């Protein structure tokens, strides 16, 4: 993603300094992280239900 400012110098930074600042990537990462949480809950429940059904 690279440094989010034109010049590779910290002197030009006076605000957001995270990777992807000012672009769309932070939003994309947030959506991916949300999807991971949902997918893990889905897979985790399915696996646990399968094990519990043996008893």
């Amino acid at each position: 993603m690279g440094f989010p400012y034109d010049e590779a110098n910290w002197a030009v930074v006076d605000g957001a300094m995270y990777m992807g600042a000012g672009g769309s990537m932070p939003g994309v990462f947030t959506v991916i992280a949300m999807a991971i949480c949902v997918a893990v809950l889905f897979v985790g429940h399915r696996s646990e239900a399968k094990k519990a059904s043996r008893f």
Partner: protein
Amino acid sequence: MEEQIAELVAKVAELEAASGGAKVTNTMFAETFYYLTIPLMIIIHAGFLAYEMGASRMKNVLSSGVKNILAFAFMIPTFYFFGWWVYWGFPTGLPGAPGPAGISGVEYANAIAWGWGESAQYMGPNIADQASGVFFGAFALFAATTASIMSGAVIERIQTVGFVILAIVLGSFAWVVAAAWGWHADGWLVTKFGVHDFGAAGLVHAVAGFFALGVLINLGPRIGKFNADGSANHIAGHNMPLTVTGLMLIIVGFWGFLMACVIVPGEAWSWFGDKPSTIYGTPITLSALAFNILMAIAGGIIGAWIMTKDPFWMMSGALAGIISTASGLDIYWPALTFIIAFSAGLILKMCADWLERRGIDDAVGAVTVHGTIGLYGVIMLGIFASGYPALQGEGVATISLMGQIVGAVVFFLCGFVPGFVVSYILKMLGMLRVPAGAEQAGMDTVKVPAQGYPEGIPASGAPAE
């Protein structure tokens, strides 16, 4: 006119008094900031102690504790005697020339880091120096952390004194060299290759993890760990709840560890008068750490849960989450931190199993959690943060994937080579491993004049599949 001048003089005096008060307040704040990181980092050691004792079988529980406590005790004076000097003396490599920031080199180290002569004024109580002691304390605790990382891997068969010698080599020399090169504004890895490792994923965790690997190769597995056909047996610790609680304590202590990686503003030794910075002089906020550390813990736990369902690996996943993102906790976007930490949690157990299949008996997974995941974190930062300036100032080196790979290789070597060589020498001297009979009898019976559980522990239920 005279009245106005008198008024102005009074005003200036008032402002000067206020500014002097603010200066004292800032100095006290700076001193207190680092002072408080020390007890927070001691919580890491409470955690390692519980973790390691819980991971030991009942016959070894106290000897594991003795070993861990003793490593901490030897780390502090040896870091005082020479570790602190190594850190300041060799950022530019051998022979210890001064670097561009003017705060390194053998001459500089001689002036501030020996416990004798002129430099002694910076190594003891001094009313004019409210910084050296708290900086030394924070770094000494980093050093002790490296020793504790190695400590868990070698439980249940190592000799106490042999282990303490290894801990001193790791904590007061090996990681210090890596820190001088990659965690100092004059460090050659930083100035030449743009290596960025804010939270010490490589220079603390990977160095300690691969030092442990070098030791484990010479130490060999515990009796009964591997079968004749090479397959491995699981040797369960006697107290999983203690181990898991210990891991959680390590994570509590990490807040102090990472806090100590921040340089506060407004002092003569600060990078800035008005904003905090990393050790490289690049900007950081404690808010950045709060966002990213929490997301890293969560991502690591969730990744490890989906793969293992085992609380030991889940809490190890939390550690792996922090370690895999530690290099860039100052600049990662929180959701990206979560994703990287999640991936570290996913691969954690697989990496540990891979190592076990190669005949390495790492009792607590330290090589994987700290070593492998530490290097993974260093390299991940190279992928996502390429182009970021690695230092404060114009025309400085920038972070790159190649630079981070160079850093990862150097950190690996800084750990593995001394770990392997020194443990090999100890093995030749008969100082590495206890005799087989003593190992089978239990190290507590052999070494410790006390009982861990005089009244026993009731058996628990059978584990789930």
